[in-house]
């Protein structure tokens, strides 16, 4: 089955408006449509026809309102991922549907029930991107003053997934040798599971994106697919080797885990056209937007200060919502050199979120993907279209046929569940 499934796995990581913060302003972007059902139905059908493994929506548990001010130029329409994927389930037959859900501000019963419902309405296509929530403002929405420390978050995450597993196994009538430990441990004390209906693929495919040692261990123990940033082939190979080694250490078959680095892209019919489009993306992110973008990343409202002036570093470090040590490390060089706020922010917003960015033609992108696969740097890519829906449409129309002609990507789905598409085995 693996052969017909192709060697290259494609996942579509869809933010409402795409990867670039300025992308919503592109002439052919449709920023209002992201509040409409038809938009998600259109996008879902595209990806389903293009034989991707899955569609993924990220999620956050806080508004973006650094120091109480919501940005006015930064488009932040992230609708609830379960809702979007539930809509998409209704108009697709094959593509996997992966929701990002935190284990820190939820209970296993609720999350298990929600994934059971998504799995049912999609008939076995649900996946769970397990996150532990890193934003310092998130706890305030749940009546907690501070985030748990990271190792505790991952400790809870492990116990949380074990508990959810019991719910899913019970519903499917499967035994669970770890049932007692899953329900009663230092995080949970659960007396009974819920009798929700189940579906093919008794539980969602488990996905993770841990980078820290705690995060990597959790991923290596739990995940069937892993997202990571990987700017170079070497970085990709190092990460993949590391995860595979950790998986072996936990007694797992490393071939049961797909490594799926993020890859943002801008396509053109010529390299020049692609470069022009990339330049437009950067230009559309004007100074005001870039300053708001950095403000969000440090939890401090920089729009209070003159854009052409320097960073008031001490004031920022005293008031920022993100850990002051991290913020100081990030801004100190700019503050010392007297670089203006606007100049620094412009440079910062050029490379959002540290992901690799491809700019070029469909042929060049197919070459790059093949090279990475051949080098053992990954099992596929988590694609982040530069802006929506144009770049996704271009990818499906022009890159997908190339990948299929090269025998890298399946021409048709070989099964109906997300786990079938991963072709990594029957699950834990």
């Amino acid at each position, binding site marked *: 089955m693996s052969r017909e499934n192709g060697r290259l796995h494609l996942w579509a990581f869809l933010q409402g408006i795409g990867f670039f913060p300025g992308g919503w302003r592109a002439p052919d972007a449709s920023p209002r449509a992201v509040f409409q059902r038809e938009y998600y139905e259109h996008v879902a059908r595209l990806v389903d026809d293009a034989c991707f493994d899955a569609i993924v929506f990220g999620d956050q548990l806080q508004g973006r309102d650094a120091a109480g001010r919501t940005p006015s130029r930064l488009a932040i329409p*992230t609708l609830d991922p379960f809702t979007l994927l539930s809509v998409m389930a209704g108009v697709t037959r094959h593509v996997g549907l992966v929701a990002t859900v935190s284990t820190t501000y939820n209970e296993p019963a609720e999350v298990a029930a929600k994934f059971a419902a998504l799995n049912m309405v999609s008939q076995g296509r649900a996946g769970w991107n397990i996150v532990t929530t890193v934003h310092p403002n998130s706890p305030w929405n749940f009546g907690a003053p501070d985030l748990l420390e990271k190792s505790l978050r991952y400790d809870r995450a492990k116990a949380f997934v074990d508990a959810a597993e019991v719910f899913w196994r019970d519903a499917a009538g499967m035994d669970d040798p770890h049932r007692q430990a899953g329900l009663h441990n230092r995080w949970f004390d659960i007396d009974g599971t819920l009798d929700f209906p189940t579906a093919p693929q008794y539980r969602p495919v488990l996905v993770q994106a841990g980078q820290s040692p705690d995060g990597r261990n959790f991923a290596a123990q739990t995940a069937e697919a892993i997202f990571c940033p990987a700017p170079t082939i070497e970085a990709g190979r190092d990460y993949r080797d590391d995860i595979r080694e950790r998986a072996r250490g936990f007694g797992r078959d490393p071939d049961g885990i797909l490594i799926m680095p993020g890859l943002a892209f801008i396509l053109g019919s010529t390299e020049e056209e692609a470069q022009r489009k990339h330049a437009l993306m950067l230009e559309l992110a004007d100074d005001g937007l870039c300053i708001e973008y950095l403000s969000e990343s440090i939890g401090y409202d920089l729009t209070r200060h003159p854009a052409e002036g320097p960073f008031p570093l001490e004031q920022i470090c005293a008031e920022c919502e993100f850990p002051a040590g991290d913020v100081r490390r990030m801004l100190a060089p700019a503050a010392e050199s007297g670089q203006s706020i606007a100049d620094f922010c412009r440079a910062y917003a050029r490379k959002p979120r540290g992901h690799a960015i491809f700019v070029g033609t469909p042929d060049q992108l197919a070459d790059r993907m093949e090279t990475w696969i051949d080098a053992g740097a990954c099992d596929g890519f988590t694609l982040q279209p530069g802006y929506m829906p144009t770049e996704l449409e271009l990818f499906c129309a022009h890159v997908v046929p190339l990948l299929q002609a090269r025998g890298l990507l399946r021409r048709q789905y070989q099964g109906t569940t997300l786990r079938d598409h991963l072709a990594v085995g029957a699950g834990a």
Partner: protein
Amino acid sequence: MYLSISIDVPDGDKNGFAGLVRQTDRIEKAKADFVILARELSKGRLAPGRVEAVVTLPWITGRLVTPVVAAAIPALHSVPFHIARALSAADFLSSGRAAWMPLLAGGERFDNAYGAGYRLASAEQPAKYADFIRATRALWDSWDQDALIINPGSGAYLDSAKVRRVDYRGPYFTTMGPLNAARPPQGYPLLLRDLDDLLHSGVAADVVLASPDRLAQADKGAVRLVKVTVETLDASLGLVRDGKADGLHLMGANALDMLESLRSWVVPPPYLGATARERLGLRRPINPHSQKGAA
């Protein structure tokens, strides 16, 4: 006269998908006015369904294209931030047809599944129920209806003055906001209450369901749906005729058959207005933070 019905996967049905699709498509054909994702307990009370309603609702509104669709939610076990966020998206993607019905019923089942910390004495339950609704609504109030500008030319995406932290502090729930989701098209998605679940609440419902003997205690201005089975149908039609009820919530094993046969002579009301709230002639909720008050 409105016709309402609930939908769920029956007990014992392991993968109830095919049955759920069949029921849904029959309901759509018969044009119900309200569909509630909930299960029926004995004695006519409703409880959260076997399928998780908040995730199922967006899918089912693709097959049920006209009715108000309500998610029955365990009121004592749900988290305002998650519910506010999900129902905002559901309301947008159903063009303003989303509704919610927080319930106390089914609590035991959820107490067991959520863990000991969630158990609450019955005397305290109504207070938590009301606090849950208030906290969720406070998060919807963190955005003004007209906060979004979305002008690609000027680069103005939203008006920062129209989104704020609400710092809600209730006896059971504390939440800062703002919500990371815009105010729903209906302002607040429609709130339903089962009077057989909770007769009085400090929070008025937009739509109430009740057995005939409790109907008279409906919240002022609410749409009143009387619960009926085949056995009580004739008497309940009398209540509608006398202006004591606005419609029927059909229950029991024959509910779907009843819907189909009633629809042969009950003409669906003319639907005017962009959202369910407008259609039902219910007032748009006032956002206390909004400059213009009514926005």
